[in-house]
């Protein structure tokens, strides 16, 4: 059984059909790149999986358990983490606290543990470990709002990992990163794959998307127009046309 299974999801915003009958399956230990021109519906698909947008049809399942219809917080605690296309740190919290906040999966909904201490030495250490892992340089005690854009993206990845997810949805994590940071990100994704995470990578940097992925799904106008291994997709005429079409527009 696939870890994440999206079936025939359709989303409408007023008269606009943002997604129609989209399917997506990701196994544990698999990286799937989701590519497509602007407005294709990539972010909308993430919003559906994480419960921020309700589909008019279709289902989302994690290990067979239905996710759609549940709240975003619950979905996160069940093991789906995401980053946002425009980084959304908690600007007034410190870099470290931004990560510690994400370590409370077991405590938040618990009527007693919710009054427990959040910043234990062990959790601070874990937060520092995650921040080092994603390649965010110290210091970690300054407000996250002071970080440059590239570092905010790394922070978001670290924060998402702190929820200890089974599925990780990355929405253009490389946008605004410099070369060494992109390389670092690629290493992180490879490591997560080895560790058995199911990763969906939305990326406009197509070479990176193809390099990092086991499978690629191409979305355009809310529909899946191609799907296959990176080599298959690279050779696909419809894909080239879809991209050239937007490039010329």
């Amino acid at each position, binding site marked *: 059984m696939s870890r994440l299974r999206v079936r025939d999801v359709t989303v409408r915003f007023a008269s606009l059909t943002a997604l129609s009958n989209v399917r997506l399956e990701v196994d544990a230990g698999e990286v799937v790149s989701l590519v497509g021109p602007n407005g294709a519906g990539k972010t909308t698909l993430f919003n559906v999986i994480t419960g921020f947008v309700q589909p008019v049809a279709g289902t989302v399942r994690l290990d067979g358990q239905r996710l759609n219809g549940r*709240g975003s917080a619950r979905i996160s*605690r069940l093991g789906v983490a995401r980053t946002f296309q425009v980084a959304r740190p908690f600007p007034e919290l410190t870099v470290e*606290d931004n990560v510690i*906040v994400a370590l*409370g999966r077991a405590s*938040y909904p618990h009527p007693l543990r919710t009054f427990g201490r959040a*910043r234990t030495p062990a959790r601070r250490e874990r937060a520092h470990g995650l921040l080092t892992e994603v390649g965010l340089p110290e210091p970690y005690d300054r407000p996250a709002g002071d970080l440059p854009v590239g570092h905010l993206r790394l922070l978001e990845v670290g924060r998402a990992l702190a929820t200890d997810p089974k599925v990780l949805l990355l929405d253009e994590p490389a946008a605004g990163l410099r070369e060494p940071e992109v390389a670092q990100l690629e290493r992180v994704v490879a490591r997560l794959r080895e560790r058995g995470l199911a990763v969906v990578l939305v990326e406009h940097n197509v070479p990176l998307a193809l390099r990092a992925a086991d499978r690629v799904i191409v979305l355009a106008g809310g529909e899946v127009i191609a799907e296959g291994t990176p080599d298959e997709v690279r050779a696909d005429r419809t894909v080239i046309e879809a991209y050239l079409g937007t490039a010329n527009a």
Partner: protein
Amino acid sequence: MSGYLISIIVFGGVWAILAVSLNLLTGEAGLVSLGQAAFFALGAYTSALLALRAELPFLACLAISALVGGVLTGALGLLALRVRDDFLVFTTIGVNFLVVAVFQYFEAFGGALGLVALPFAEVAGVRLTPQRYAWLVLAVLGLVVAASFALRRTWLGTGLAALREDEQAARALGIPTRAYKVVAFALAGVVAGLAGGLYAFYLGSVFPQNFGFLVSIQVMAMLVLGGLGTLAGAVIGAFLLTALPEVLRPLADYRYTILGLILILVVMVAPDGLVGVARRWLTSLRRRGGQAETTPPAGSEARP
């Protein structure tokens, strides 16, 4: 202590407790409330009714005020979930008018004549002198400030901070923001309920007009003047604005005009309030001190 000082301590303390309650909502969780006087009223009327009709002892009244404040304000929090965040402030204003209207129109709550002639506050059969009462108010204030500080270290406190900064991002990290909003209202209600009970017993009477919308504005002004989101600010702002009108008694007619001017001035010049100003001042002092530290030759111990 002189009677004047005692009344400043008691009223300043009660307003400070109410400002701490507002800070739980607006400062910690980012939920803007302009209906704090209504939550305050729930506590005051609960104490007054219990003391007059059920003849319960003072401390029991106070405890039940906190409980009733928590439950009813938490229920209002449920209502707040149904409105968009930008309308929350209007909802709380509406609640303020509604609560005052209920106390005003129902005879069971004393109506426009209020509830008068509460018994004196007694603890273990001993009547509290005004001076003892002032100490009690300060003790309760110390307690709620300490509890607020402690809250920040918990998952709840951290989760509320995340909710304040970015609700969607908070939800994406597993924070049950809806439940947390209700809990924030309930906790604010407990604290406001305590303030209300203390207020009712000190005055010995409660009237609907003690809890009007201007009172909510006044509490917000205290918090903003002191520094929104800081507990020291809540306390400092409350005592300053309690003492100020007494000092400026000749200007009593312009009380709300002065309040409005102070608010506008703070928001324009120092949006982080007096505590923010003090902090920046200290930081710049420390920086200057820090530069001095680098000047002495190596090996000399610059730290005190």
